[in-house]
């Protein structure tokens, strides 16, 4: 009988390779943060670069910047203040104002509409699937709902632009509704994130122990009362986390809003108007020519940093919500 040599030495190297692969995700996150942070600093350094005559002479985009905004030259802090407080965003035009608030308003508006659709419908669907639907039906309907999340977002964008908007124009709002508007983008986006709400919520509601339901019935509650006053509160932490995750998806969603909501920054909360979201601006700039280091290139990353911070905050919040409000059952 041949006794195999023990391959311990080789396994050390293997283990090392595995660890490297494992830590790769750390490298990706670090890379993402470093790239975003570096270029964001470069964005806020624009006024400093504009104060350097040699640089300005070499670069046409800086020259345009100096022409448009002589008041910013040499004053980076003024740009910082403008970025967070000004209500006009026009870095691609000759006026060049850098207030990010209109983009944030666009993102907020479309996401709010999406949540207004996804949370009520998603929760009702989740309650139905977990509490009322017969098992066979549930097994068929749940994957069908999840199909909604698997459709590429470009398809939803097409649908919102060529079907939902004309429909709303013809039957509800008439010409008061702009061809590209926050409403239809938000509505369609709501359907897109609906399965996120319903699937996760259904999972946590099914995890609520049957004894709690039986206790409710024993006290004479109806099925609806058990669903709403026993199961729902018991699963609340998971449901809240699902809603926050859905919000974060809506905020980061790009193609639907780029197609259906529009590409004109607009400081408004009127859902019938054209708005531009943070993500749609990134797409708009990328469609044009953005040489490395140009003003447009830097705005991309500054705006991307804002988006990154928002979604990170939400993801952390959803984890916190679960930890804080989780009910433990033995």
């Amino acid at each position, binding site marked *: 009988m041949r006794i195999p040599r*023990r*391959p*311990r030495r080789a*396994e050390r190297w293997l*283990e090392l390779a*595995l*660890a490297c*692969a*494992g830590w*790769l*995700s*750390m490298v*990706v*996150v670090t*890379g*993402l943060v470093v790239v975003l942070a*570096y*270029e964001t600093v470069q964005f806020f350094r624009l006024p400093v670069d504009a104060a350097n005559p040699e640089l300005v002479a070499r670069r046409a985009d800086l020259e345009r910047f100096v022409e448009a905004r002589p008041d910013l030259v040499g004053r980076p802090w003024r740009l910082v203040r403008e970025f967070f407080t000004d209500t006009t965003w026009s870095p691609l035009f000759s006026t060049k104002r850098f207030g990010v608030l209109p983009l944030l308003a666009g993102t907020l508006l479309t996401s709010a509409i999406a949540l207004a659709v996804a949370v009520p419908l998603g929760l*009702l*669907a989740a309650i*139905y*699937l977990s509490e*009322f639907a017969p098992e066979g039906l549930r097994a068929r*309907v749940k994957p069908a*709902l999840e199909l*909604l999340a*698997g*459709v*590429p*977002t*470009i398809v939803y964008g*097409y*649908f919102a*632009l*060529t*079907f939902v908007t004309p429909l709303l124009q013809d039957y509800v709002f008439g010409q008061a509704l702009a061809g590209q508007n926050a409403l239809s983008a938000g509505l369609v986006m709501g*359907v897109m994130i*609906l*399965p996120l709400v319903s699937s996760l919520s259904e999972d946590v509601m099914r995890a609520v122990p049957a004894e709690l339901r039986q206790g409710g019935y024993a006290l004479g509650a109806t*099925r*609806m009362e058990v669903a709403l006053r026993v199961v729902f509160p018991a699963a609340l932490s998971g449901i809240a986390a699902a809603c926050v*995750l859905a919000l*974060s998806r809506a*905020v*980061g969603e*790009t*193609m639907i809003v780029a*197609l259906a909501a529009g590409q004109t920054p607009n400081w408004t909360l009127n859902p019938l108007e054209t708005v531009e979201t943070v*993500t749609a601006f*990134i797409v708009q700039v*990328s*469609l044009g020519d953005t040489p*490395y280091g140009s003003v447009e290139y830097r705005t*991309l990353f500054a705006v*991307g940093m804002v*988006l*990154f911070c928002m979604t*990170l905050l939400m*993801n952390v919040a959803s*984890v916190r919500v679960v930890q804080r409000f989780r009910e433990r059952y033995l």
Partner: protein
Amino acid sequence: MSVRSVEEAGWREGLRWRERVGALFVAACQGATLLALVFLGILLVDVARDGAPYLRPELVTNFPSRSPHQAGYASALVGTLGVGLIMATVAFPLGVLAAVYLEEYAKPGPLTRLLEVNVANLAAVPSVLYGLLGLGVFVEALRMGKSLLAGGLTLALLVLPLTILATREALRAVPFSMREAAYALGATRWQVIRHHVLPYAAPGILTGIILALSRAVGETAPLIMLGALQYVPFLPSSPWDYFTVLPIQIFNYVSLPNPEFQRLAAAGILLLLAVLLCLNGTAIWLRNRSGIRW
């Protein structure tokens, strides 16, 4: 009539009322579920109706053109294939290895915990930001230009966390007794993983990989940053070539004012959905074939 029976009559009346409200509530729940499914149906029917006239062989053999009647998706299809290939060769081995490390090797502790949180957060980063990462690192810093290679690598970063999460799930489903049995026969750690854990987890891993692949195929936003070249009238022949992919070509056609191009976009969507259907069908087939129940 005694006080008690009056109370009971009131309670019965209340119960009838409560049950009626309950029935309404169930109807509302059913309605919400149905509404979502009906929406999906309308979406598919609408796209199919718009795109049907353009479903012809030229759709996949012709290059983009100024005339909608001659335009097709040939370069986009090949681009999608190329990007997918590069992505798959980079992301999937790395993702599986990373998951094996996290699940089988990493010692529980704050560092491992950090790594896990990190992967979860990475999976939730909006896809446009991967585009910015690709633009900053692959296109500019590594000087790959707006090429097929940069696109594939960017998508690889995007699907890496998805692959890791799916693979871990599959590894976790392999019962511990399997590993213990192998150890008892003298296998080393890697032998246990290589000969026992991975083969049993393979169908689950493959399913996860295919789902990640289908997510990447439908992804538009990050690739726009990496050269959404509107007009690519040739097939990419090397990883350094310019490229376009199906969703971007669709986006391009939707944005054109001519309504004929929107029909063409709808036909492209049907093409994209067909590709996704094949991928997901394979995933379901794999899942059903792995009849192992522990």
